[in-house]
């Protein structure tokens, strides 16, 4: 492994329900500002969601917005913002060497539901079914829309990995850079899931959809009164480069991809498995050549479900419980569950900690569930850490996919 090139993050582009740039998002996390609001969707009715208000027309014509998908718009916004943040003018790079790797939990449900709703108005006459359906619903749609917007001609596709997808977008980007398949990667994840009523109805049927009189308190991982997930849209794409390339162009380096692990529970369609989660965390540490005590922030996946949070807390305690310098937090308590974007967004919210050493909290913990108690859990108020040299970002998904990604502070070319 030591012969493989080192991979660094040099740009961040994001839209979250509580911020449309890393600066806004980070400030919201430090200020305890939720992005969850009342929401209504056809057939399902009133519920809660994390909605984004980024300015899509900044990078797309109104016609392109109409022709493409919400996930595509989110991806295009994030890709442009990430490049801008990295100081990269796409016209100056060899666009055949740019890869776009976008994690998605699901894609196509929004458009299919919309078309069925449309043809229902015409007594299910399929001559009213749109010719846009297939290009909007193919599984590579958001990544493909990014290539159309940027005129990049390298490999571009989506990675379907349920709610672990955001991490997978980053991990795959690193792998493609290591292999020399691309010279610049735009990787992360997107989610348009709040525009499909099916996902709300599905979680409700599972008794896993959050309800609360105060929308900002609905997503409450680790709290004894948590009652389910708040679904959100959003996106986060990073520019990733080989360290040598980043140094050559004197890029600002947010952090270095230190290690990762992706594994499978092989135990249930929806129920998590803390043994496999712990194995995943240890696998990432091993790959990074680190000990648990080398990690200073563990960003949990916890989605505010009874069983999921408990399982993850057990895994975190198993791996990190003996190490006093480890802080544990959660981002979904602010923004809900941004599905395919979750892993990528949640990492982004923690990256500034390398500079300011402030660990944002998990909010809405009024009464900590004893089964979710974890050493180092940062509750409701930010905490200043003694040091923040490495972050482990966890994302798990249905069908038992687990991912753990470690990003470390960049400490020089020799480090």
């Amino acid at each position: 492994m030591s012969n493989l090139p080192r991979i660094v993050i040099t740009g961040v582009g994001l839209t979250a329900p509580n911020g449309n740039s890393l600066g806004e998002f980070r400030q919201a996390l430090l200020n305890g500002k939720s992005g969850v609001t009342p929401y209504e969707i056809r057939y399902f009715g009133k519920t809660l969601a994390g909605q984004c208000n980024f300015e899509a027309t900044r990078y797309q014509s109104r016609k392109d917005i109409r022709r493409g998908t919400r996930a595509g718009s989110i991806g295009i916004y994030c890709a442009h913002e990430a490049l801008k943040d990295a100081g990269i003018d796409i016209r100056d790079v060899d666009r055949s060497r740019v890869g776009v790797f976008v994690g998605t939990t699901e894609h196509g449900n929004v458009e299919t539901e919309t078309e069925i709703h449309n043809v229902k108005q015409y007594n299910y006459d399929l001559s009213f079914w749109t010719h846009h359906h297939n290009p909007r619903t193919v599984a590579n749609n958001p990544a493909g829309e990014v290539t159309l917007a940027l005129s990049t001609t390298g490999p571009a596709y989506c990675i379907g990995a349920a709610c672990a997808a955001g991490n997978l977008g980053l991990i795959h980007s690193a792998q493609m850079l290591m292999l020399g398949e691309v010279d610049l990667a735009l990787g992360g994840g997107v989610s348009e899931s709040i525009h499909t009523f099916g996902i709300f109805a599905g979680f409700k049927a599972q008794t896993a959809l959050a309800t609360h009189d105060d929308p900002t308190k609905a997503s409450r991982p680790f709290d004894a009164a948590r009652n389910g997930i708040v679904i959100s849209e959003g996106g986060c794409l990073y520019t990733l480069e080989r360290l040598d390339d980043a140094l050559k162009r004197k890029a600002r380096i947010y952090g270095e991809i230190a290690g990762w692990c992706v594994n499978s529970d092989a135990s249930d369609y929806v129920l998590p498995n803390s043994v496999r989660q712990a194995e995943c965390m240890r696998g990432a540490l091993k790959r990074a050549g680190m000990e648990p005590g080398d990690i200073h922030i563990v960003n949990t996946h916890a989605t505010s479900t009874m069983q999921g949070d408990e399982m993850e807390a057990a895994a975190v305690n198993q791996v990190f419980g003996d190490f006093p310098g480890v802080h544990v937090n959660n981002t979904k308590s602010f923004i809900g569950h941004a599905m395919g974007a979750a892993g990528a967004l949640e990492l982004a919210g923690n990256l500034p900690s390398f500079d300011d050493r402030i660990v944002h909290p998990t909010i809405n913990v009024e009464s900590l569930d004893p089964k979710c108690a974890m050493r180092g859990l940062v509750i409701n108020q930010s905490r200043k850490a003694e040091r923040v040299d490495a972050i482990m970002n966890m994302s798990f998904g249905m069908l038992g996919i687990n991912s753990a990604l470690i990003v470390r502070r960049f400490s020089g070319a020799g480090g």
Partner: protein
Amino acid sequence: MNDAEIKQAIIDIISDIAPDEDTSNLKPDVRLREQMDLDSMDFLDIVMELRKRYGVNVPDTDYMQLATLDSCVNYLRGKLVSKTAKV
């Protein structure tokens, strides 16, 4: 619908499909695709909107009849049912 109303109906559809385009000065005898950034998918949108809004089915063998505003009016004369637009 008279010819002016048919022409306006087409322009309204184009304005919805291509909202970034200026449709105020379209030349009636010049191909629409030469005056605007319209591609084959947009063209299919026009056909779909004619079906939705006016109940007109344009078979693919007749698509060429919709090349200019004038040819649209000629082709659609007598075919458009004036009814509340259904968007």
